[in-house]
């Protein structure tokens, strides 16, 4: 059981690490519509979870031309929040991801330092797995060759699909990189998860990929990287399982 404080959280958006410009984020979660009804003969008003809404609260941060200010007109991106607890997030840390666009970007009036607020709309209409919470498979950092990561144990296989969110913050060399997810039943023999793959050619990008809604994801998952021409890539990768 580990509790945490916000200074160990990390926030990525549109392929940028904006943690060092962020002063706060009000909320990150999921809320299902409910309609508490009771037929005449029933004892208590009850609900069935309806459509889920992924919630991303207002972000506040520094007015910084290199970070938040540069993202003010973002129309399609992924936002990923990694929870570190008592140290910077690592592989297996809890994460929250959502496809977003920037709805508002407004400069505020700080006492001394200029600050801004940013609000978001969640562009989740084509997400088939309505779960924003998952785990980091690759904490933000550089890889210099085709490689694979350590398996992250979910405790059991799941059968309601998964989606991955990635942020590429730096690339060296020219070519392409394919980021993907493997799964395994025993943490020994891995195979690619159909649908969870993305190819990038430049830094400063984010995106997501998903399986079908009923795909089985085996107990262990890890990142997989294939480089063609590129000599180094810095990226973060999170995977969210449907539950």
């Amino acid at each position: 059981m580990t509790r945490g404080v916000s200074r160990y959280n990390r926030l990525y958006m549109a392929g940028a690490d904006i943690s060092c410009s962020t002063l706060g984020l009000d909320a990150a979660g999921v809320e299902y519509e409910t309609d508490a009804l009771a037929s005449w003969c029933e004892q208590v008003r009850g609900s069935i979870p309806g459509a889920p809404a992924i919630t991303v609260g207002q972000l506040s941060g520094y007015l910084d031309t290199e970070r938040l200010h540069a993202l003010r007109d973002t129309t399609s991106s992924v936002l990923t929040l990694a929870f570190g607890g008592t140290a910077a997030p690592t592989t297996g840390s809890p994460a929250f991801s959502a496809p977003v666009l920037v709805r508002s970007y407004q400069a505020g009036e700080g006492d001394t330092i200029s600050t801004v607020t940013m609000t978001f709309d969640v562009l989740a209409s084509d997400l088939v797995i309505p779960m924003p919470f998952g785990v980091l498979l690759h904490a933000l950092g550089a890889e210099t060759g085709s490689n694979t990561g350590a398996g992250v144990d979910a405790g059991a296989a799941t059968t309601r699909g998964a989606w991955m969110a990635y942020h590429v913050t730096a690339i060296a060399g020219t070519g392409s990189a394919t980021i993907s997810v493997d799964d395994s039943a025993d943490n020994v023999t891995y195979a690619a998860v159909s649908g969870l793959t993305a190819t990038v050619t430049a830094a400063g990008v984010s995106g997501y990929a998903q399986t079908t809604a009923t795909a089985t994801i085996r107990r262990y998952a890890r990142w997989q990287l294939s480089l063609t021409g590129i000599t180094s890539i810095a990226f973060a990768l999170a995977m969210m399982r449907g539950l």
Partner: protein
Amino acid sequence: MTAQTGRTVNRFITFKIHDSGGTLRTIPINSINGVGLDYESVDVTAWSDAVKGALTGHPSAEIEVSGPFDTTTHGYLTGIVGGMTPLSLDVQFGIRHAWESGEPQFGITATSSAGYICTSYIVNPNDMTFTAKFAPFSGSTAPAWGTSAES
């Protein structure tokens, strides 16, 4: 110790909910509201009545809790939010010591058609707290006050 009577304080309140595997888990909280049944008041007054009168209709029993973000709790709650399986829920009020049988509790032991569902789980990354909401499953029997633990 034996069950005690009298007043108590919130440090002896325990909130428990089924995880996705059907095991009751204690969720560390620092706020809870809505523990109990809240009946709608149905006005049955006729013009000719000397005084307005009401009867109780269906009760609501939604519960909202907040607490410190915790990786273990996070795993439990992300595993049940939006789920369609009714869950056992038990709010235990220990009387000036850790709760034991004979002291007040409110909740329900889940069946395939009765229990609670988790309808919302929101994390506040600023202060690293969470808020979760729970509602009875449609068609469920009513949760109730008692003195024996749910299972």
